């Protein structure tokens, strides 16, 4: 369903003499429909950049991103806009993912409005989504700062669901959250995924979380994918030295 070929993103700095940071360097992989690919790697290795490049939130330097056979990187602005709702992203910081000046209700209604859903239908849909992600209707009239991080992440999920996406990039969706809340959110994502047959790219630096969430795992190091394979293969039989280092010290409590 999603195929990434030779994707690279270099950041340049300096005006006279350019210097490049190879944040993502010639990355290739594919994800099947309904599959979850976990992406692990140390901080700054390029995970976020990769996720954002795939969705064209930043323009990649080179490569192809084929989504159902369409090269996303070739779409023009208008085509991209109509195409976008099919792919969504969930960010690490749930509080920053919502406009602080909009009520929860408005935030969730926003994608519906953008999709030109009939005005009269919106209210009902919003209610439905709110319940779907396990919030209570009273939350609809609050502002993000009046809710906890876990609740905000639910709102983000509700909003993503409103668009009926096929593919979601979850960029460390729970790393800002508490263990107990993390469990709630991760479970919710799993449930929704199963129900809606979503395809997921799940980014995290927490091996245990990725292990729980993913079908396959890709290990990223210095902008490149250094190892990729089924969950258990990676955990039991790591090949790359970095993966070994990651897996070796895991504490079993």
């Amino acid at each position: 369903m999603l195929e990434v070929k030779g994707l690279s993103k270099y950041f340049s700095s300096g005006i006279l003499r350019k210097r490049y940071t190879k944040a993502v360097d010639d990355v290739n992989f594919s994800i099947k429909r309904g599959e979850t690919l976990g992406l692990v790697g140390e901080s700054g290795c390029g995970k976020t950049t990769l996720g954002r490049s795939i969705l064209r939130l930043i323009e990649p330097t080179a490569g192809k991103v084929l989504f159902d056979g369409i090269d996303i990187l070739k779409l023009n602005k208008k085509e991209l806009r109509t195409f976008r709702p099919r792919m969504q992203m969930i960010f690490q910081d749930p509080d920053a993912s919502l406009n602080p000046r909009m009520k929860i209700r408005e935030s969730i209604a926003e994608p519906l409005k953008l999709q030109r859903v009939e005005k009269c239908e919106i209210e009902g849909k919003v209610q439905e989504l709110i319940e779907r992600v396990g919030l209570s209707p009273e939350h609809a009239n609050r502002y993000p700062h009046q809710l906890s991080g876990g609740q905000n992440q639910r709102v983000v999920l509700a909003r993503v669901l409103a668009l009926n996406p096929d593919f979601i990039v979850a960029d460390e969706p729970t790393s800002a959250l508490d263990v107990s809340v993390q469990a709630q959110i991760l479970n919710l994502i799993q449930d929704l995924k199963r129900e809606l047959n979503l395809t997921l790219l799940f980014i995290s630096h927490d091996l245990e979380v990725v292990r729980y969430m993913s079908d396959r795992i890709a290990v990223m190091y210095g902008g490149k994918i250094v190892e990729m394979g089924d969950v258990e293969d990676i955990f039991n039989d790591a090949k790359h030295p970095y993966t070994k280092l990651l897996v070796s010290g895991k504490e079993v409590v």
Partner: protein
Amino acid sequence: MRGALKSGNVFCKNRIGVTGLGILSVFILTAIFAPFLAPYDPCEMFEPMAPPDSQHVLGTNDIGQDIWSELIYASRISLFIAFTTSIIATFIGTLSGLFSGYYERFGFFVMRVVDLFLALPRLPLIIILAVFMPTSIWNLIIIFVLFGWPITTRIIRSEVLTLRTRPYIDSERMMGAGDLYILGRHILPNIFPLVVVQFVMEARHVILAEAGLSFLGLGDPTSKSWGMMLHYAFEYPTIFISEVWKWWMLPPGLCIVVVILALVFVGFALEEILNPRLRREIV
């Protein structure tokens, strides 16, 4: 709505802000109702240089105009110039700030212009322009706007730059929202408080600059502003060796001081409200 109410609430608790707003409203009301408040037409001439008495609370100026009425009418010009300029400059600054923050390439060029404007000595340039443009209120406004927008642009832009990378803006884009939609519906409301602060600060700056230019004799000599009153007072040969300064120089000077202070108070309070780190220890 509650967000707004909340900051309103904080504002009310902020004694400095409320004081400023109070003073400012007094002056705005004075300006609006000047014809009802002033005992005379400020251009009507009586005996020149009459000291204060029951007829003329603050006496008359060098050509016999009632100083008290002049003072009241002057609040009109001073505030009019200040607010008109601030509105236009903040408007231009906000728009260019918004777009230059959002579109990098456009922003790059705008910022070079802004840098240039900020690197050039502002007041000397204004003085020159003021000397050679026919002195009218509108020319003054044009000059002030010309030099007022870049600061706002820069401040708004840097705010937009940080807002632009917020995940919620990315989410909007992912939902298929267009640039204008994002700018108008998501970024603008978030920078609006900053725009208000800029507006207030610009108004303060303009009042000072207008007074300064008028004082140097570069304002419109036929208009009645506090700076112009001070200019005529300063030109008066015995201003320092007689007592006339008490009723001719002091009142317009103090009016400028108080209005600026009020604006500073309001701006200061607004900034405290906007900066949550400062808010905790509000006075």
